[in-house]
C-alpha cells in the first residue's frame, strides 16, 4: 500500500508545479536553479516558453503582414486567420469598432499566452500548466480588471466611471438615497466577483483535466499488486481513456483560452459603454 501511495504521489507531481523535472529513469531527474528563496519552477519555465513561442510566431508574422498583402504559407495563414477571427468576431462585437483596435493587442496576448500555457501543460515531462494554478489565472484576471477600470476611468473620468456603475433609474429621491448606494456596492462587488470567477473557471478547468488524467493513470499503479489479468485490463483501459481525455484536454485548452479572452473583451466592452 505504501508503494502505491508513492506512485500516486509521483503521478501528482507530474501534473503539478515543481522545481525539478522528473524525466524517465534512463535520463534522470534534474532540479531547476534557484536564487535564494526564489526557486524557478516548471510553471515559470512553461510561461517563458509560451511567451517566447508567441514572440517567435507573431513578430515574423507582423513583418510579413507589413506590406498589407495577404501572407503566404499555411502557418502564417493559420495565425492570421486566428487573429482576424478573434478581432472581427469577438473583440469588435464586444468592444465596438471604434475602440476595438486599442484593446486588440492586450486581448490577443491574453489569448495566446493562455493557449500556449494550456497546451504546454499537455507536453509529457515538460508540462505543468501554469493556468492550473491560481497565482497565474488570478494575475491574468487582475490585469483584465485593471485594464477595465483604467480604460473606463479614462473614458468617463474617475467619478463618471464609478457613478456609471449604478444603472440609471427614475427613483424618488428618498428611495434613491437608500437604493443607489446599495446598488453601487452590489455592482462593484459583482464586478470583482466576475473577475474572480474568470480566474477560477480557467484554473478549475485546467487543473481538473490534469488531475483526472493523473487519477486514471494512477489506477494502473493502484492494481499493480493484484492479478496480472486485472492489471493488464486496467492498464489497457486507463491508457485508452487517458488518450481520449488528452484529446479532450486539447480541446479544453483552446476553449478555455477562448472563453477567458471572450469574457475579458465583454467586460472591457461594458466598461466602454454606459448602461
Amino acid at each position, binding site marked *: 500500500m505504501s508503494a502505491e501511495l508513492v506512485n500516486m504521489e509521483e503521478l*501528482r507531481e507530474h501534473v*503539478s*508545479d*515543481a522545481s525539478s523535472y522528473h524525466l524517465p529513469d534512463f535520463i534522470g531527474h534534474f532540479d531547476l536553479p534557484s536564487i535564494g528563496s*526564489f*526557486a524557478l*519552477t516548471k*510553471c*515559470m519555465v512553461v*510561461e517563458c516558453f509560451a*511567451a517566447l513561442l*508567441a*514572440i517567435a510566431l*507573431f*513578430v515574423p*508574422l*507582423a*513583418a510579413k*503582414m*507589413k506590406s*498589407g*498583402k495577404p501572407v503566404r504559407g499555411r502557418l502564417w495563414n493559420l495565425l492570421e486567420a486566428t*487573429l*482576424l477571427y478573434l*478581432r472581427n468576431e469577438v473583440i469588435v462585437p464586444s468592444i465596438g469598432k471604434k475602440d476595438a*483596435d486599442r484593446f*486588440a*493587442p*492586450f486581448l*490577443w*496576448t491574453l489569448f495566446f*499566452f493562455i493557449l500556449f500555457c494550456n497546451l504546454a501543460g499537455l507536453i509529457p515531462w515538460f508540462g505543468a500548466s*501554469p493556468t*492550473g*494554478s*491560481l*497565482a*497565474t489565472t*488570478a*494575475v*491574468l484576471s487582475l*490585469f483584465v480588471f485593471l485594464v477595465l477600470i483604467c480604460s473606463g476611468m479614462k473614458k468617463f473620468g474617475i467619478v463618471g466611471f464609478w457613478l456609471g456603475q449604478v*444603472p440609471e433609474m427614475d427613483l424618488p429621491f428618498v428611495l434613491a438615497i437608500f437604493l443607489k448606494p446599495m446598488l453601487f456596492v*452590489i*455592482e462593484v*462587488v*459583482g464586478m*470583482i*466577483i*466576475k473577475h*474572480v*470567477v474568470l480566474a*477560477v473557471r480557467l*484554473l*478549475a478547468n485546467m*487543473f481538473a483535466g490534469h488531475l483526472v488524467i493523473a487519477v486514471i493513470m494512477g489506477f494502473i499503479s493502484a492494481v499493480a499488486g493484484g492479478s496480472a489479468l486485472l492489471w493488464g485490463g486496467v492498464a489497457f483501459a486507463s491508457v485508452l481513456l487517458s488518450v481520449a481525455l488528452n484529446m479532450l484536454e486539447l480541446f479544453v485548452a483552446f476553449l478555455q483560452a477562448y472563453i477567458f479572452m471572450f*469574457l475579458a473583451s*465583454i467586460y472591457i466592452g*461594458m466598461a466602454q459603454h454606459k*448602461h
Partner: protein
Amino acid sequence: MHRTEFFSKTLPLKSLGSSLSASVVFLLYWLETATVFAQETAEASEARLDPLAWKGDLALWTAVVFLLLLLVLSKFAFGPIVKALDQREKNELAKVEATERANADAKALLEEYRRKLDDSNEEARRIVADAKKEVEIQADAIIESARTAAEQERARAIKDVQAASDAALRDLAEKTADLATSLAGKILKERIDPQKHSELVQSAVEKMTNQ
C-alpha cells in the same frame, strides 16, 4: 439586455444574491489560504498540490512575463499587425470603391455605346432608305431619260427615214423625169425598131434600178 440579465445568462452565477454569497465564500477561502500561505514554508510540498494555494513567486513571475510579453508583442507584433490590418482594410475599401467606379464607368460607357449603336443603326437604316429612294429616283430619271432619248431617237429616225424617203422619191422623180426626158429625146431622135425599143426600155429600167 440589462447587465444583470446578461450576466445571469453568461456566468454560472444565477443572480446577484448567489454572487454575493459566492463572493463571501471566496473571501473566506482566500483568508484561509492566506493563513496557510503564512505557514507555507513548513508545508511547501503540500501547498504545491493545492490548486487554490497562493504562490506569490509564480504570481510575480507571471505578472512580469505577461507584461514583458505584452510590451514586446504590442511593440513588434500586434501593434504593426493592427496597423497592417487597418491599411489592408483601407486598401480593400479603396479597391472596392475603384471597382464600383470602374463598374459605373463601364455601365455608362456601355450605355453610350448602346446609344451610339442605336444611332448608327438608325443612321444606317436612314442611309439605306435614302439610298433606295435616291436610286429609285435616279432609276426613274434614267428610265425617263432613256425613254425620252429613245422617243427622240425614234422620232429622229422616223424623220430621217421620212427625209431619206422623200429625198429618194424626189431623186427618183428627178431621175425618172431625166430618164423619161432623155428616153423621150432618144425616141424622138431615132426611129427605133421594136427590138431596139425594148432594149432601150430595158436599159432605162436597169439604170433606174441601179440608181
